[in-house]
């Protein structure tokens, strides 16, 4: 994949009016938390506490990002859950290796169920 060197290593988060409401594109590591947290601040969870994220164009996600998502879900009110759509194979493999049971508050979107 061709990567524009100016944006290499950055995370772009776009908002959609439909679900999933946040689309993540690029690389999500400790240097890229601000764009995510800024976008997240504008999102109102659904009535059952869900925030839907589209990860389809995410090239990299680190352990700190998983820690951030799980902590956010836990610390908000314990009801918030991130529903993950279009999880890239590398991210999926990483979460599988470390165990979905440790990812409280993260769910695979139903249409992605295998």
């Amino acid at each position, binding site marked *: 994949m061709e990567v524009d060197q100016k944006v*290499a*290593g*950055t995370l772009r988060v776009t908002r959609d009016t439909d679900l999933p409401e946040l689309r993540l594109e690029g*690389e999500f*590591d*400790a*240097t890229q938390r601000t764009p995510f947290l800024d976008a997240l601040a504008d999102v109102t969870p659904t009535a059952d506490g869900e925030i839907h994220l589209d990860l389809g164009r995410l090239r*990299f996600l*680190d*352990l*700190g990002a*998983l*820690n951030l*998502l*799980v*902590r956010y879900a*836990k610390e908000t009110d314990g009801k918030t859950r991130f529903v993950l759509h279009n999880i890239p194979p*590398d991210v999926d*493999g*990483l979460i599988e*290796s*470390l*165990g979905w*049971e*440790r*990812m*409280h508050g993260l769910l695979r979107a139903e249409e992605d169920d295998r």
Partner: protein
Amino acid sequence: MTGNTETLSPAKGPGTYDHRALFFEDEKDFLATTVPFLQEGVEADEVVMAVVTPDKIKLLQDALGPIGQAVQFADGTTWYQHPVQAMAAYDAFIKSQALRPIRLVAESNWEDRKAHEVVEWLRYDAIVNAAFRDNDVRCICCFDRRALHPDHPEILEYARYSHPELMDAGIARNNDEYLDPGSVSERCDRQFIEPSPASAASMQIEPTGLHAVRDFVAQHAQRHHMAAKPLRDLIVAVTEVASNAIRHGTAPITVKVWTADGGLFCEVVDAGQWHPDALVGYLPPRSAADPGFGLWGVRMLCDVVNVRATSEGTTVRLRTQL
């Protein structure tokens, strides 16, 4: 041979954690202790498992007869490939048994261990005491004196540090040499490791330069034909280690990469003196929100992780098989 009833008494009550080492000389010796131990578990309707080498599975099945059908057998050569992953597998297994008492006969495959693996397995045997001490688990770790690696006499020495009770020639006794898991882990950290070679490729890490670190390491790993999955794991691991060095360490921070003995080494060095707790990063965390999750994840994703803090700085070295 002492009667086996004596070796297994006094029976411990529920909720106890019991981790014994059995040193044996031959099959007869092995069966004399393990068979009654497993039988007693089956009769008490406990979860009974043997994670041993394939030849010992056959031996136990033959000796147990029909009662052996109530014993779960797993191939130790598959189970014991990676210490931190093996501990996570036991953690998942214990949690899946809904608080039923568990009885386990375990045997690692020392014969094929390489030097860099031996020390991590010795550490593992100590850290399980911290990981599972609140569980109702009784485990006998079996050491076949004939199969122990001749270059590693420390295996028996560390087995004495890591098992509160020892069984030798069928006799159980309290072990005065037992050390707490953190002390054993620190001893393991003190084992000599070669310094990074002068020929290692190196790059300085900038506070915002995590992408550059990934690029640098990936290029070197690809040059050495690292397969896709270990490469993905290494890139996640080195990003975490570099993030830690930026957060806790002191500049300058450097990443170095080199190959040796069939492995790719990747080392992050900073000028600070941070050091994680001796057990953090080994115990399986309950949640990705836990403080030790990052370092544990790194240990899950690499073959070996060494953390060293000296007066000159802190070094975290990752090894990935090529």
